[in-house]
């Protein structure tokens, strides 16, 4: 009894309490489950949706970490590995260059698979895709630190490890999509290719849409100008 009272009054206890309230055990467990998915992709991604081991909160966290690590990479990776032309860098565009293809993939994948017996819902595809990104922040942070201790000749180590992190992400994505949609190997690959096509189609439509909008606005604007001149 006395013990709990001390805990309640102490700062540490307060913070712990806040954490417990904010991030419930479910959140931590689902986040920890991403580590299980790293090494057990088939089993892990099956449980992710079918056993509801994954959460949006954890998926968002992984995505946020990925974007954050990518941004930190720009600044803290040694210039021996990569040089950044800061004058030309737009951080928001750079972030969008990660998030936009991801969003396209999620929507494209869901749109194609849902027509062909894919069991995954849009949200599940999103969670699965985000969980598949786990190796990226996990490997890139140590690599970022490592890069600052490398010379040109040793840069190969970095390149190989960095490639491994990306390939790992790719394999997880393939495994994950297969399990979420309950597809077999061949069908899964086929629909991943379809998803890529769907992405292209969406980009095409978006470009068409924006150019039409621009034309439309341009038309009404010139009409307005004409009106001003004549009035």
């Amino acid at each position, binding site marked *: 009894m006395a013990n709990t009272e001390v805990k309640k009054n102490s700062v540490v206890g307060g913070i712990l309490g806040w954490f417990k309230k904010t991030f419930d*055990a*479910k959140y931590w*467990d689902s986040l920890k489950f991403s580590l299980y998915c790293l090494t057990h992709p088939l089993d892990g991604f099956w449980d992710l949706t079918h056993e509801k*081991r994954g959460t949006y909160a954890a998926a968002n966290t992984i995505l946020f970490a990925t974007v954050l690590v990518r941004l930190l990479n720009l600044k803290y990776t040694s*210039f*021996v590995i990569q*040089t950044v*032309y800061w004058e030309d860098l737009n951080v928001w565009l750079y972030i969008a260059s990660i998030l936009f293809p991801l969003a396209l993939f999620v929507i494209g994948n869901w749109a194609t698979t849902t027509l062909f017996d894919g069991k995954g819902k849009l949200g599940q595809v999103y969670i699965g895709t985000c969980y598949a990104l786990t190796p990226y922040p996990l490997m890139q942070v140590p690599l970022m630190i490592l890069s600052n*201790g490398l*010379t*040109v*000749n040793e840069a190969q180590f970095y390149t190989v490890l960095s490639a491994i992190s990306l390939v790992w992400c790719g394999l997880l994505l393939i495994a994950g999509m297969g399990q979420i949609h309950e597809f077999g190997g061949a069908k899964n690959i086929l629909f991943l290719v379809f998803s890529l096509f769907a992405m292209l189609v969406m980009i095409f439509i978006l470009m068409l849409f924006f150019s039409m909008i621009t034309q439309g606005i341009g038309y009404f604007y010139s009409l307005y100008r004409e009106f001003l001149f004549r009035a």
Partner: protein
Amino acid sequence: MMKKPLHFQIKRIGAVLAAAAIGILSVPMHSDAVEHRSYTYIYDYWGDVQDTPDVYEVFKVFTSSELGLPERLNNPSGIYQHDGYVYICDTGNNKIVVLATDPDLGLVYDHEFSSIKLAPGPSNLSGPTDIAISEDGNIFIADKGNNRIVKVDSNLNYLMQFDLPVDTALSPDTIFLPNKLVVDTAERVYCISDGINKGLLKYEADGTFAGFIGATKAPYDLWDYIWKKFATQEQIDRMPVDVPTEYSNIYMDYEGFIYASVPVSDAQALDDLKVDSVRRLNLLGNNILVNNGNWLNCGDIYWGSAGGYSGPSSFSDVTAFENDIYVCLDRNRGRLFGYDDQGRMVFGFGGNGNMDGYFRRPVGIEHIGYDLLVLDQADCSITYFVLSDFGQNIYNAIDQFDRGEYEASGESWQRVLDADGNYDLAYIGIGRSLLRQERYKEAMEYFELKYDDENYSKAFKEYRKEWVQSHLFITVAIILLVFLIPLGIEKYRSMKIEIATSDVFRFPDPEDNMTREEIREYHKKQRQEFKEREKAKKEARKLAKMGSNR
């Protein structure tokens, strides 16, 4: 130190205003032309144009009347400097004009000659295009109109001549049109002949032909090859023929290597690294030019069509100083490009125009000490460039480094940096000077500023070695911890199980009076039971966990 004349500066200001006016008046003008505000520039690590102070300044432009020549120069095509004398090949007037150098006036007319004595063939020169002088003072003249290279002594007495070689590689109707030549210390002659694209013609000192060296590769394209397989004969005839480019000019440097310039016109081939703009040939004709710069040593790296000029820089001549900086002359845009021994850009300046320091058709470049002479064929003039204070600091820094005066070199580079904070080589130069002084940490900072990863790695390697040595205890401790902690945890776990399952803690009841066999059996059973208990515990924990997740 000679200062830039005032009239030149006024002209420059006029040029800027004129350029601005043209920029406003003509709408479809490429922005590149307006961006080049400064006369001298370099390309930085990113390929951005960085204005720099002038490395070379025009001392004077020498025209025929300025020199007091008896006859106006007519279509001069060759310039050569030997022992303080400058030889101009006045091709149109069939003679060679000799100018003396003067510390105050620059160049003064000395004499000229148009004929040679005791020649078995024609004694008058016909359209001489180049001249070279050996160490013994013998003069070699590319007498193009007479289809020969003549060798005469210093009094112009005929010694011997070099003719078209008898070689199966040449078609029988080839005409010998020697255009450019150089002579090495053993009086071997290397020559470029119009219409022969198999490389340089090499003659031994006794006049025998020693073969072709340094042929440029013909650009080869797989796509072209496939396309030609399907094209009709008429189509093939209309296609551009892939022949190896001829060299435009050659220069023998102080070490006896031949610098050769290539007039590149195919931008795609340059992009694909299939052609070199400039080469340095060894005795076997192999290109030994180092190209470690951030950008190719091909002159301009942006080929925007501005002012009526398009395509890559096309070098018409090259010259090399004794500090291994070589200067290429671009006849396309009338610019000069200097590169150091690593192929890094030192300067680029010039342009097409009528003002001092600009050219109309530059064909030849030579140097006296570190001063540059550029021969303009259309203008019939020689532009005399002198090194500016800024350029002097650059050259001092390079020379001092080569001599091993690293600290002084660093100071010279610092002076360069004070004048121009965007000069990449200065940062790298200071870094290299610090590297030699074993101040690795500071050197690394300078290299990092200009992204020189090779030198940075050299410095960093030493710095890392030093750091490890001075922090030996921590390094060893970290390495040990990295390996020992996981090992320790593993060991701890297995020991825990070992202790828990050990026979020592579970004895059979002594009253049972067991035999040895029975005791062994008992222990076995105990271990089995323990393992099962542990397993059950684990299972329960897992279940509880899953329950909490639901």
